[in-house]
């Protein structure tokens, strides 16, 4: 695997957008060409080398390329947008829209990210070691066709409305979530290992949410099915005892499932 190392200089006040710095586009390009590629800084185009030192070597095939962003890019957006193969590693924080519309390959961010990570992703692996803000694995604003495939993992905490309109694939949140995880969910699997503030699965129609932590408040539109032990969802065995709910009956014809850990959730048991 060939490595292309981008070492960030100072991050500008106005965000950078580097949606085109993905293995699919860099394949076959010389380092000199890559340095000279246009990226957006607000509404004006700048050259990649103005904000990044570029070293390393490209390869012919995207799947042979690993892009390493060697530092904190807290004000850089759209890292890995639409990539189909190869790898991106960010050794720091990143801004909004990491892995948007990602179709394949692998992205790892060692720090925290902004909102909309993995929006409309359909394949590949997106891993965030730190926290993420709102709308993790959501649909594009206004759309009702959300994330359809791939694996999205956040090791830290996340904000509101994650997995909004999710259709397929898998999201694992190791930390806590704010309100409305899995809102309008239509398929796929959302596993939350930490706590949930409220309204999990609001207006969900299909798909599965598993919550291992404590749920402060649960929606009334769900039907209680009793306690299940060591559940199997989407071919995966999840150990523990769970309250099983079906809904959200606020939506016509809904048949989604929410499993909430028995431990710590006495207050929501019917």
């Amino acid at each position, binding site marked *: 695997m060939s490595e292309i190392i981008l070492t960030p200089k100072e991050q500008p006040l106005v965000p950078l957008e580097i949606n085109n710095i993905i293995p699919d586009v860099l394949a076959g390009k010389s380092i000199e060409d890559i340095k000279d590629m246009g990226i957006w800084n607000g509404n004006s185009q700048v050259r990649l080398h103005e904000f990044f030192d570029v070293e390393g070597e490209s390869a012919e095939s995207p799947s042979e390329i690993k892009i390493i962003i060697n530092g904190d890019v807290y004000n850089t957006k759209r890292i890995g947008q639409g990539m189909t193969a190869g790898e991106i590693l960010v050794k720091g924080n990143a801004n909004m829209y990491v892995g948007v519309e990602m179709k394949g390959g692998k992205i790892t961010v060692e720090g925290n990210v902004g909102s909309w990570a993995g929006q409309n992703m359909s394949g590949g692996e997106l891993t965030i070691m730190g926290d993420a803000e709102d709308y993790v694995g959501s649909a*594009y*604003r*206004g*759309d*009702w066709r959300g994330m359809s495939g791939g694996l999205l993992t956040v090791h830290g905490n996340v904000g509101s409305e994650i997995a909004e309109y999710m259709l397929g694939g898998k999201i694992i949140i190791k930390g806590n979530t704010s309100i409305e995880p899995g809102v309008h969910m239509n398929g796929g699997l959302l596993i939350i290992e930490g706590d949930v503030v409220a309204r999990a699965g609001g207006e969900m129609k299909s798909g599965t949410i598993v919550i291992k932590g404590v749920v402060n408040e649960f929606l009334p539109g769900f039907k209680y099915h009793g306690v299940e032990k060591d559940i199997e969802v989407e071919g995966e065995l999840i150990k523990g005892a769970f309250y099983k709910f079906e809904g959200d009956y606020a939506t*016509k014809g809904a048949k989604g499932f929410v499993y909430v850990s028995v431990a710590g959730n006495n207050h929501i048991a019917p």
Partner: protein
Amino acid sequence: MERIIKNGIVYDPLNSIDGEQMDICIKDGKIVESVSEAADVIDASGQVVMAGGVDPHTHIAGPKVNVGRMFRPEDSKKDAEVITNLKRAGSGFSVPSTFMTGYRYSQMGYTTAMEAAMPPLLSRHTHEEFIDTPFIDHAAYPLFGNSWFVMEYLKDGDIDKCAAFVSWLLKATKGYTIKIVNPAGTEAWGWGGNVHGIDDPAPYFDVTGGEIIRGLAEVNEKLGLPHAIHLHCNDLGHPGNYETTLKSFDVPKGIKANPKHGERDAVLYATHVQFHSYGGTNWRDFVSEAPKVADYVNKNDHLVIDVGQVTLDETTLMTADGPMQYDLHTLNGLKWANCDVELETGSGIVPFLYPPRAPVPACQWAIGLELFLLVNPEKVCLTTDSPNGGPFIRYPRVMAWLMSNKYREDMIENQVHKWVQKKTSVATLDKEYSFYEIAQVTRSTPAKVLGLSETKGHLGVGADADVAIYNFNPEVQDQSADYVALEAALQNSAYVLKDGNIIVRDGNVVSEGTHGRTYWINSLYDGELEKQVESEVEKVFKKYYSVNFANYPVQEEYLPKSCPINGVIQ
């Protein structure tokens, strides 16, 4: 400024010119007999030349269009254009931004487009959007079919006062025609209901859809308006609705056309008839009744229709037919916006998908084509009810479907659901539109029924020099076999001239943009009576409206290129 378009193959139905090779001369924005040697020359050899297209029914400006833009960011994302030296940036596939709307109509060779639904209370907004829609001439149709004033006067049987009110309101809102949408139904929706057919009364007012149509048709001819009443029938989109449609068509029959401007014969313009030609009792036993509707249209002289062709795209539905939009929202479960415009009308907006493989959308596509292929082109206008049946940028595709049986066969056999062959007759129709007939349904027929045929929809002396030149040679190329090239040529005009100025070349907008004309009715029916009605209206404003009466009328400052058409003065 003089210009001559040389050797084009000209199609101009209003002047009975069918594919004749001839020159078109232009001076000072008008078509003239001849020009001097100094005239600029455009060589149109081997190319089709037509007047600028006229769209009699589209939704391009005003509050509901703007809500459509705001509540569908995913539609904007699908189609975005960047700024150039001449053009503004823009976005929106089914509901483009204002500037993009102007550019895209122009690129297809259209130079006139009418906004088909203007809530009177929000007419200022509509005119403001027209200001930002470059090139195309336009007008807006205020909604009367569920107006409390209209229903009140008709309930009292006072046609004169109703006429005075309509006259005042057209002038106040700078509107163009009497638009009627689901008469009595949108008012009923204010109470959570709807009407079914034309015999159900509106709550409280106790007038039926049929009475509203009849009353407003009489008013239209009393005022001598250039356009016929513009009717969106009741029961839109419901299986079995063709009976309501035919009954509605019958209502104004016998009223005599009396335009003071233009030369229409029709007293009724029925819009998006595709959505009104369904048989059966539900979506299982549903069938096309387009042949019956087409037969009625062909046999009766008092009406002209447009189709509202479904283009099988993902689009945005928007109409003043509030209850119907709610039905659609419950049908597809997608997001829904709804609005009540105090005392006047309402509206609803829903995103919509017409997948070719789904049975009902495929049939809707076929029913539109049946109407086109069965109705005499002098009595039908090409529309998609944009964006309801599909966005207006699909007009070239609709034309290609009409002009190529081969294209349709390919669709029927390979692209659309088999219900098309079971429930409609489209597979049995092998008519192919000629360029002359295309010019009829996109130029001469709409211009005539709008009462604008003096200056629009033709290339005779005195007409506005709006000209579209298409890079397709019917003498060499086969429209039926080469439908891909045909569609491309119609989408990206070789040249488009607006008032004699070149605005499009090789499919690209090459002019910075000018304001289009705003046609409106400067009507005065009966001075005394209008004053009386005005004072009655003012009282109702004080009591019920949230705006002040004085803030209601739209001043002419909102019309940078004001083009009043004078109505009757008694």
